[in-house]
């Protein structure tokens, strides 16, 4: 059953149970959010998405307030704008303002909303906490002096990855994101998938591997499929001056149907091998205990000859093949075809089966 409501003077219809945030966006209103994430449980805590229902004493957080029939909503009333400005000022008062060197510069919600509402400085500036976490892990930078306590990282860790490595510790203004007993990520159940980086709306969480090589907002993005395994996760290769400088998530289900942006440690952080001088660029043939570069034709001919010789001497069942989870289903199909049809052996297996 649909319900009717008026948003910024515009009448719209939405299904029963729709939250005001969705209804407002449907009506064309641009509602700012920090803690809201369409893939995570609702928190309703940042209070950035507040709107004004006519006749109500208080503002409501649109992300957690169901639309009601006959509601009249203002999304940019003077009260709403004042509340959003104060929320931003309160966040700024504890925020390490180092935008010039921040990886998130250019795609940071705090930056964008301060720009939008003309918040240049905080009237509530005072004591700041030193919450920077010098975490020795090689992947994830945790600078909680930039944290806005939206808890999206906590929810992503629990709901997307299932690791539950982090949660909120302490109370009130001292509340901060921590592992159990506030230790390092390495000593926690963290699997370094970096989903926390993916959902962080500010620069509190970032990739150590990509740090300093190009701000993601300024890099070219090339959608591609991860080569590490056959799952087929898609991600954005960050490219700068024809060089891969990072990986970021594309959370759009149309672009990233398999993983909706979620990745594992290899996909998110294991791309730096691409530019490694240690990479093999030609086949190598071992002669007298030493490898020497060879052409593909030479190497393939050599392998074929050896396999044929083994088959003639010992029969096809003396040969087996292990294929890889890193190749696709189609490639794995061809691999078993090669074994069964060309070589004549059923000895085919696959590392992912174990």
């Amino acid at each position, binding site marked *: 059953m649909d319900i009717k409501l008026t948003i910024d003077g515009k009448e719209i219809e939405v299904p029963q149970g729709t939250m005001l945030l969705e209804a407002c966006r449907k009506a064309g209103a641009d509602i700012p959010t920090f803690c809201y994430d369409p893939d995570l449980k*609702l928190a309703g*805590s940042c*209070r950035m998405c507040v709107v004004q229902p006519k006749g109500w004493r208080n503002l409501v957080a649109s992300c957690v307030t169901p639309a009601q029939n006959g509601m009249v909503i203002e999304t940019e009333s003077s*009260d709403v704008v004042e509340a959003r400005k104060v929320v931003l000022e309160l966040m700024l008062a504890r925020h390490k303002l180092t935008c010039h060197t921040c990886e998130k510069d250019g795609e940071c919600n705090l930056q964008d909303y301060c720009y939008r509402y003309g918040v240049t400085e905080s009237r509530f500036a005072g004591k700041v906490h030193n919450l920077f976490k010098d975490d020795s892990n090689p992947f994830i930078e945790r600078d909680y002096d930039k944290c806005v306590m939206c808890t999206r990282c906590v929810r992503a860790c629990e709901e997307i990855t299932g690791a539950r490595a982090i949660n909120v510790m302490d109370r*009130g*203004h001292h509340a901060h994101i921590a592992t159990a007993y506030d230790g390092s990520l390495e000593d926690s159940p963290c699997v370094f998938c970096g989903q926390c980086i993916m959902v962080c709306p500010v620069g509190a969480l970032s990739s150590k591997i990509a740090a300093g090589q190009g701000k993601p907002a300024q890099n070219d993005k090339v959608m591609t499929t991860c080569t590490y395994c056959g799952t087929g996760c898609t991600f954005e290769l960050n490219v700068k001056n024809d060089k891969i400088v990072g990986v970021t998530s594309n959370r759009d289900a149309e672009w990233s149907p398999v993983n909706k942006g979620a990745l594992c440690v290899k996909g998110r952080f294991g791309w730096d091998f691409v530019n490694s001088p240690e990479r093999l660029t030609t086949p190598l043939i071992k002669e007298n205990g030493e490898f020497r570069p060879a052409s593909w034709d030479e190497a393939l001919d050599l392998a074929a000859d050896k396999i044929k010789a083994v088959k003639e001497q010992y029969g096809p069942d003396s040969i087996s093949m292990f294929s890889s989870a890193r190749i696709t289903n189609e490639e794995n199909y061809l691999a078993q075809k090669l074994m069964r049809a060309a070589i004549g052996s059923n000895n085919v297996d696959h590392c992912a089966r174990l």
Partner: protein
Amino acid sequence: MTQEYRVLLEHADKINPESAADYIQVGGYKGLEKARSMNPKDLTEEVKKSGLRGRGGAGFNAGMKWSFVPQYPETKYVVCNFDEGEPGTYKDRIICQKNAQALLEGMAICGHAIGSNNGYIYCRGEYPFVVEMLKKAIGNAKESGALGEFNIEVRMGAGAYVCGEETALIESIEGHRGEPRFKPPFPGVEGLWRMPTVVNNVETFACLPYIMTNGADWFAGIGAKSYPGTKVLTLTGDIENPTYFEVPTDYLLRDVIYELGGGVKGGKKLKAVQVGGTSGAFIPSQNLDTPIDFDSMGAIGAALGSGAVFVMDESRDIVDIINRIAKFFEHESCGQCTPCREGTFRCKEIMERINTGRGSLKDIENLKVLARIMQKASLCGLGQAAPIPITSTLEHFEYEYLRKLV
């Protein structure tokens, strides 16, 4: 009228609160018997008709609250809010220590109304001795058969003020961080372990046996029309007689202080009185002739709240007191929503500045802005109410602030 009117505390110190038999001797468990003879819907209507409103502070009609509970699912909970975290409030402890069986009976009455045999009492962490007493009282009531199938378990808080907020209390019982949930869904529909749950205060439950025994009309006829019954008040601060009283709800605040309370300590003049706990408004002496009921208090910008009455004499420094209150809220904010988490901290900073003679007019302006947004945009009642002492003293005692500025 300057006398107490004792209903809940009529037999205080004359019966053993642990003993169901003692309680039955003075007419106890008759209300439950009557309730159980009624259809749950009629029972809820009877409670609605009595006009009983929540005694924890929010003042919501108890029968109305029960009526939101759906018939299905079958698992439902009756939760007693005995967190009693408001500084200066100890009326729930008094009710338990004097008349624990009435609380148990009240919970069982509610259980019959909503179709639940599962009761929880969430007890303030600072009351371990009351927990022991309650456990004995429950054991005794179960043994006597008075409670029938209705079970009650006592859970203990760990000292967090925010756990007095009903959804934070529910989270705490579930074993989570004491953080309020956003509403809706309200507990009546989705509460403890996501099941329909009624959360009422100790005093609210304890009123029920008397409503059932004497009838809804009797109760509705006591005290103020829109908030009938009696209220247990606790007097603290600069008062001659700092103790507890049970009075009808149309009792005047002036009489609470000057009749029952014996007046301001040492014959000094009154400066202000804060009613309802730490988040209550400061009431100046010109507003003393106000009945203590919920709506009359609301009309003067105050709140009856938990029924704590904190008296301050003429020598008290309002700004210093507000500074302490700001510290309290900074400490007790759960840290979930931005206006409260950051706002209580910045309020404390600004109040410290003003209190130590380093504040400016700008600070007062900023305090007003912050208070307004905390009230309008915080997630739960804690953040919304935390600035009330500040705004009410800026309204009535602004000169005390101004004289401390640079």
